[in-house]
């Protein structure tokens, strides 16, 4: 009998001893990212990964709203940005211009940590995923700096407060504000890694390609004032992707239901990488009729980007590449295009006094923007004239891509190009002088509460 007992007991123990793996099952509809194919899925989360801040366009001088339109601006802090209010964010608002890039950084950190922890997977796939994560992290930090830190100044960059560098996915890690220089060092390291790792072509334009990484690098160097490197990156970028959309061949009536840009973003050959701002619905943006006059009558952008709002005296923006044929991505396009590369290189040539090369690049772009038969190649008498022309064309071409405030910040660094912004609303005039503290957005109050970061003066 004793023997039977032991047999039975041994049987039961054996039954439960094999249970070590019994609990290690994963739910089918959830994912604990661990392998390269999981990271692939995370980085394809377009709704998260391709978001950029958009608040800067509300501050910049392109936007012009009537009183009614201003009243319809969806969020309080959007309105206060428009009037450069010193008191910008309230205590409990979720400022997506801050949190959305950091979410991208969290994804990137998760992927980079995961790749380091798990060495399996095809090298090609690993490289691509790693390169993309590097690209996204660099792009997110660059956008954060442009919104929440001072313009890069080599002399003070190691002292100017930048944004906290989070390089791990640990949400409990303490943070302080790293200097602008430290953040740029990280951004450049990431973007250079991305250039090395990314494939020349990406299967989808929501995935960064090598051209996208060069375009990002060009944008970064331009913002830093490193025109040699910016030109170099733009050139490499152009060598990888150089087709421009020929606006002459665009059928303006192709938009089915509503006034939107008639070419879908997927079929638009000059789009290198798709990203969108967190800001307003694209059609909430408008420009003044003065601004609209900057586009010549035969400039196709005048009608493809804008339509007149009756009785309001301004023009509604309908030119976001995102809107092409799809109502799914309502916020404005803020990604990279071949056009931007041409403009960056043109500017660099002009700054290096190579006027002809600068004008060649500019004309290479503009020929695609004018009505058939009305295009006159632009010429410039001097590098300075060339530069002013290029900056004007840059403003017109890249409108509402969240780039204008960045341009103002870097241009304000030089008194010759500095601009004082003014706007009038409800009979009140607002002025924003060059270099004003209000060019830098305050850190959201929630962040200060949680991490006690140093606040930007306002």
């Amino acid at each position, binding site marked *: 009998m004793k023997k039977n007992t032991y047999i039975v007991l041994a049987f039961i123990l054996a039954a439960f001893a094999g249970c070590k793996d019994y609990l290690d099952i994963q739910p089918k*509809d959830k994912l*604990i990212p661990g392998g390269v194919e999981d990271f692939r899925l995370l980085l394809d989360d377009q709704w998260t990964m391709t978001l950029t801040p958009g608040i800067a366009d509300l501050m910049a001088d392109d936007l012009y709203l009537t009183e009614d339109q201003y009243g319809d601006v969806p969020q309080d802090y959007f309105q206060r940005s428009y009037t450069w209010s010193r008191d910008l964010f309230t205590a409990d608002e979720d400022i997506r211009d801050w949190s959305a890039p950091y979410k991208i950084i969290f994804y990137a950190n998760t992927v980079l940590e995961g790749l380091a922890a798990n060495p399996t997977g095809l090298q090609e796939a690993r490289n691509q995923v790693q390169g993309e994560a590097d690209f996204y992290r660099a792009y997110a930090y660059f956008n954060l700096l442009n919104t929440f830190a001072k313009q890069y100044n080599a002399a003070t960059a190691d002292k100017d407060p930048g944004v906290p560098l989070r390089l791990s996915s640990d949400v409990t890690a303490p943070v302080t504000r790293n200097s602008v220089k430290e953040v740029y060092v990280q951004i450049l390291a990431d973007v250079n890694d991305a250039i090395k790792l990314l494939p020349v072509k990406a299967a989808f334009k929501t995935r960064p390609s090598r051209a996208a990484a060069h375009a990002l690098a060009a944008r970064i160097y331009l913002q830093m004032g490193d025109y040699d490197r910016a030109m170099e990156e733009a050139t490499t970028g152009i060598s990888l992707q150089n087709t421009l959309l020929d606006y002459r061949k665009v059928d303006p009536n192709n938009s089915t239901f509503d006034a939107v840009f008639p070419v879908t*973003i997927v079929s638009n050959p000059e789009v290198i990488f798709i990203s969108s701002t967190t800001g307003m619905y694209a059609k909430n943006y408008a420009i003044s009729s003065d601004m609209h006059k900057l586009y010549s009558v035969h400039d196709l952008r005048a009608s493809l980007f804008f339509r007149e709002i009756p009785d309001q005296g301004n023009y509604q923006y309908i030119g976001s590449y995102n809107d092409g044929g799809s109502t799914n991505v309502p916020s404005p396009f803020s990604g990279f295009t071949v056009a931007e590369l041409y403009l960056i290189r043109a500017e660099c040539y002009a700054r290096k006094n190579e006027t002809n090369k600068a004008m060649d690049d500019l004309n290479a772009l503009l020929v695609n923007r004018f009505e058939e038969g009305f295009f006159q190649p632009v010429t410039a008498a001097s590098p300075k004239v060339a530069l002013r022309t290029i900056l004007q064309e840059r403003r017109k071409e890249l409108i509402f891509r969240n780039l204008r405030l960045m341009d103002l910040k870097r241009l304000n660094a030089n008194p010759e190009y500095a601009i004082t912004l003014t706007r009038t609303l409800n009979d009140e005039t607002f002025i924003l002088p060059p270099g004003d503290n209000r060019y830098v957005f305050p850190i959201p109050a929630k962040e200060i509460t*949680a991490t006690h970061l140093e606040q930007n003066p306002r």
Partner: protein
Amino acid sequence: MKRLFVLLLCMQYIVPLRAQSVTASLQNVPAEKAFAVIQQQTGYEFLYNNESVRKAGTINLSVKQATLEVALQQCFSQIPFTWKVVDKTIVVSPRPVTAAAEYTISGRVLSSDSRQPLIGATIRVKGTDKGAASNGSGAFSITTGTQHPLLQVSFLGYISRELRAENDMVIYLEEDKKKLSEVVVTTGYITLPKERATGSFSQVDKSQLDKRISTNILDKLEGLSTGLSFSRSVTSDKPKLSLRGRSTLFSEDQPLVVVNGFPIEGDLNSIDPDDVESITILKDAAAASIWGVRAANGVIVITTRQGKFNQRPSVEARTNIVFGRKPDYSQLHLMSTSDYIDAQQILFKAGRFNNLFSPGSTVPIPEAVQIWKDEKDGKISGSVAAQRINALRDIDILNDYSRLFTRNTITRQYQVNVSGGSENMQYYLSAGYDKNANYMVGNNYERFTLNTSNTVRVTKKLELSIAGQLSQGNTSNPFDVTGSSPFDIIAGTRSATNVAAQIPSPYSRLVDDNGNALKVPWRYNEAFKQEGYGQGFLNMDYYPLTEFQLMNRRVKSMAVNVRLGANYEIAKGLNLDLKYNLEKNNGSDRNLEDQNTFMVRDNVNLFLEIMPDGEQVRHLPPGDILTLAKNDLTAQTFRGQLNFNRSWRQKHTVAAIAGAESREILREGSRQRLFGYNDRTLQYADVDMVTQFPNYYGFTNSIGSVLGVGAPVTYIKDRFISYFTNASYTYLNRYTLSASGRIDGSNLFGVQRNRRLNPLWSVGAAWQVQREKFFHADWVDMLKLRATYGFNGNINKTATAYTTANLMTSGENATSYIPYATIINPANPNLRWEKVAQVNLGADFALFRESLNGSLEYFNKQAQDLFGSAFLAPSTGFNSISSNIAEMRTQGWELKLDSRNISTNNFRWNTTFMLSIAKDKVTKFYNTGSSMNPSFFLLYGGRDNDDRSTYLPVEGYPLFGLWAYPWGGLDAKGNAGVTGPDGKRITDRFEAGRIYDNIYKLKYMGAVNPPVFGSLANTFSYKQLNLTVNILYKLGHYYRGSDLGYYTMAAMYQRGPDSFKDRWKQAGDEAKTNIPAFTGVRAQDRTNNDFYQFSDVNVEKADHVRLQDVLLSYDITRQTMATLPVSRITLYAQASNLGIIWRANKHGIDPDYAPQTFSSVMPPVRTLAIGAKVGF
């Protein structure tokens, strides 16, 4: 130990010797003991034959300062010995048997419960062969040699007694099953006598369950256990249970329900209540912690009926039929049609309907509004308009609705069962059938159940058992919430939140005088319909009655439960128990939406595309739409357990178990929708679910986004492994110590491996005070004190320790249409399961010959590691993380009294009183700034509903607390205001929001859930007639009254509450009413509505007492009717939901079903049940 007690006794009861006087108070002591006491006090020595005196049994000696002679006489009257004093020695010798020494003892034996004579009881003189049996009137007579010998009285089925004989004595015997020491409690793992239990158990037996007629077992429990409260929420037809208040914020809050030792995962409706033998409710840590991580909300253990070994087959049949009234819509307290027209006229005059008449408007125009418009446009005269309007005032759509769509209810239940057993097997078989015709016409439910339980003794040591249960339920055209959604059909939705969303005006009619269905204004106005027909649209009219008649939905559920068991006796007292349980539920839901329903027609129109060449392309083909859904559940448990149960020398009793179990729960579901379906040919059409089609309405939609089924496949697998032990040790049947421990492991998503194994434990002690020798209060029959402490766990499946992503299907990525995953949680490696520490102190007592039994308990639950949203820096990329951050305390008292008030041979009156107090308080919760915004609390606070995302914990207050603005009264124009903290009147809604910017500034009104509740049941019996009256009460809580509907009336044509008639109408009314004016001005009405709704004048005390039910039953047995062809018939009738006896509010509102904004639950209708039970 024993010596110690003797010593204690001596110290207390024996007065030190004085010459020859004796003082003693001894109960049932051996004669030798009495001799020793006398010897000690008097100095006289005793001389006797030890052995023969010892056999004489025990005696009582109760003397005070008595002479030696008196003391000795008392002693020797009780034993068959005599004495004489020789010098200082008392010589004891057997009393010579002589005729002169004979005594006659006579008396009667009665049942203590019924006071009926017990015929044939055995009365025996202890230590002799003398005895007698009671006669037909329970009387007996015995002749003995001693005057007051010990008698042993016994009767089958009753507890034997031993007592000292007296003349003309009446001996009461107690029915065996009622003896407390024989009551067993079961935890699902172990069954133990209640007297040895240390924990807090509530036991509900079959006779109590039989006192309420219901098809649902849990409904029967209401009012039968302390600590268990029921609340009916707006969003579910199942009552929400809470045991001893609440001890979690966002995690599972319902008690675990265990059936025959295994948690039931499926629907409790699969259990036929007639099969239930008993229910044990495990309340404290010692009782419940054996259930580990699922025990924090308490455990309800249901045991179904079994046969008995060596029992003749017994057959029982039962049937009852319950009649209920149709719903009484006056209970919704809605405004009258006439008031609604007045309100609509105010809105019309204020120009609020102007947009209905603007070109391009597609919205239907209410009939009254059209009349006023015609009058204004001069199309009809003022008198014609007034005449037409007045004709509408007498119509109430609810009358048509009630007449056409609802009916009185009938519920039928039938059950027959057989049980019995032979020497080697026991069996129970039952079959049941229920058929309910619910209040909505066409909504029927039927259930068929089979149940069997068999145990076979294979050898002396091995028992095998197999039990199975099968239940098949069919529902036709189900409604989601019983009695709460009368406008489902009218509003075109099944949501219970649309009760008042009566888009067809109250003056719409559903049928004409000939009974033909009428269309009501719905969704589109006539101009738009005409335009649509021009495009080729199908009919766009809405006929509520036709819609109702076209409903065709069938929900079926099949539940199978199989238990296999083997019990092997390894050694004396040691058993090995192996059990396997399989629970399988298959549910199917088939909804056929006829092509003539509005929904189908409307969607066919939506997907009509007009091509540039004018061609009409229907992307959604006309035809029925068939929705098929399946939900399957498979739960399997394997358990191995060693039971040890043994007593040594009547002193030590050990009961222990140890075991392990594994459990797997798999839930699978699928759902699909077929379009263009033809139910006769069973053909359907393929449609393009993905492409965005442009439509006439100016949008693009894909069929999938409008009519898709969401996630078509679900698959969730949970696994648990548990190791458990439970042991108790009892010494001398007086002192019991208990301990239990359990370790649970699970795959539950995210809990990190090293924290998966979660130990939970308890300890307890109990003391049977009345068994102590020093304790002798005659009136106390039983007094047991107990104390326990321990931990129960709770799980939260939403939390996760790893970075977790949701997998998204392709097509949702806007430009690439590739699949992706989105992170929903950052890693949180410190996650733990919630746990609840509980102290329980209890006293069980039986007093005055057990005529008053009861228990009193105190508990204090400290819930720790509760989940809540912890605030994160936005630079983490997340706003919050689900984390163990909160704490909560719940404490309370429970009192249960069973009283036998009157007990004569013919008439009995028993009372059961229960009182429960449970108060919860959130003791730790971190609120971020935004979540402290009072507007959230005013809107969502104090709602104990199923939507946990609306729970708003506030540190220092109950989870479901009510806050309000201090009311500021009405001004001279009848507009509402609230009072600011500085006493100033606030008249602006936004200003109030700015001033009251923190919840702590608002006025706290109280909790929504009753802190005090209980029941009072009185049972009166006259001969075979029994009457039970059940009263329930809830005290100390509050409810917020309905809003005024001022906003929704205008915006959504909703019919507001009847308080409209009491509103401010003219100057001076502000002194008489608190209901603000209805101005027709949007902003002012919104302010009036919100200020009134959220101020303290609209918060009412919810205290009430309810007459739950009255049961009348009559027993016919062969004793009362010799010709009865069966052994017993019980006839019964029960009236239920009889209504409120007393309430604190003066509005005639039932606080359990108070009308609320957007939604109302109607009080349950009164029902009358009649039935019969026959025993063969």
